[in-house]
């Protein structure tokens, strides 16, 4: 998911051509305090005018307790982007309050409550402690993400870029997302020049169970897509497992072997996930 500064017309109008799966139009940290109103208005007009076909569009608003958050919601919610991203959520009461405001705005506009999703960002130690309660609060929360830079600041970490200090938080957030059966996105990798470092981090967070990673520069798209897209070998192996499962299921066999390795229901589930990520239709196998 590519962050696009909300006050940058050139990037906003070109957002969908870079090849990212999703765009995060940012009204929060990427916008100077004295340009918040300009960014909000620009993003509103862009959403009405530009077709971001093929990209999921999410708008990150400012926190509701800042002087900008409520106005962000009033302008953006009626436009119903694919999702609204809420930064620095820390408690259950807070998410309840924000979603109530969103739904009041939707009611005033005659909009349903089940079209626009909500993404929650966990960016403080308190948020990490409460993440499961926050994530399960509403069925319209379909993703959570970790904001590594703010979390590192909240934890008073001097060195944050190696990821050591936020490792526990990453795992806690992944576990909460998996428990709620929703997506989970990793934080940005700020060293745009360091492609190897980005790849290493993307491979690590994929192993942890993250669904994807936020990025801050179009140059980072290719690396992250490469890491998260199943390889041909992985796809072939998954297809073989699923086909063997179907054959064995017809004969009433639940556990069997493929290439000398035991296959049971969880292995089949992971193989199906690989095929889903590769956009392979299981029926066509």
């Amino acid at each position: 998911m590519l962050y696009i500064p909300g006050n940058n017309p050139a990037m906003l109008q070109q957002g969908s051509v870079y090849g990212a799966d999703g765009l995060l139009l940012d009204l929060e940290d990427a916008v100077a305090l004295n340009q918040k109103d300009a960014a909000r208005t620009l993003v509103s007009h862009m959403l009405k005018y530009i077709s971001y076909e093929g990209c999921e569009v999410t708008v990150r608003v400012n926190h509701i307790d800042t002087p900008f958050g409520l106005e962000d919601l009033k302008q953006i919610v009626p436009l119903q982007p694919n999702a609204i991203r809420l930064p620095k959520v820390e408690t259950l009461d807070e998410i309840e309050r924000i979603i109530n405001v969103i739904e009041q705005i939707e009611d005033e506009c005659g909009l349903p409550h089940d079209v626009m999703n909500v993404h929650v960002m966990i960016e403080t130690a308190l948020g990490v402690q409460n993440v499961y309660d926050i994530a399960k609060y509403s069925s319209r929360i379909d993703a959570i993400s970790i904001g590594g830079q703010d979390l590192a600041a909240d934890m008073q970490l001097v060195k944050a870029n190696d990821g050591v200090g936020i490792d526990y938080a990453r795992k806690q957030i992944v576990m909460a997302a998996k428990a709620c059966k929703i997506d989970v996105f990793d934080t940005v990798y700020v060293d745009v020049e360091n492609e190897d470092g980005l790849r290493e981090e993307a491979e690590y967070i994929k192993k942890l169970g993250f669904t994807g990673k936020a990025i801050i520069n179009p140059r980072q798209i290719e690396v992250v897509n490469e890491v998260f897209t199943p390889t041909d070998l992985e796809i072939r192996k998954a297809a073989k497992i699923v086909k063997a499962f179907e054959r064995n299921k017809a004969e009433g066999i639940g556990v069997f072997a493929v290439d000398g390795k035991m296959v049971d229901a969880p292995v089949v589930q992971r193989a199906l996930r690989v095929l889903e990520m590769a956009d392979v239709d299981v029926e066509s196998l």
Partner: protein
Amino acid sequence: MKLITKAQAGSFESSDVLIMVEPVVEGAGRIIELKSIVMQQFGDDLLKQINDGLDFYEINDVRLIINDKGALPPTISARLETALKRAAQLQTGTLK
């Protein structure tokens, strides 16, 4: 909308437009200074969009200085709206 103070919005970046707004005395009309890198191709469209925007906000007396760097219509609309609302002191969290 009543304009109270000078204000501006936008930038000189490519694909953006810088719009400066200044209140003028009643009856002075719309004084619009327009520069655009695509003046020859889109100057008339740009001017029409600006006038439509002023009609929408019911502003008949204003001085506008517009420097366009190839902005798309939504950018022009957004920058005009921001500049006018700042000039009318309707927006919070903005440059005064």
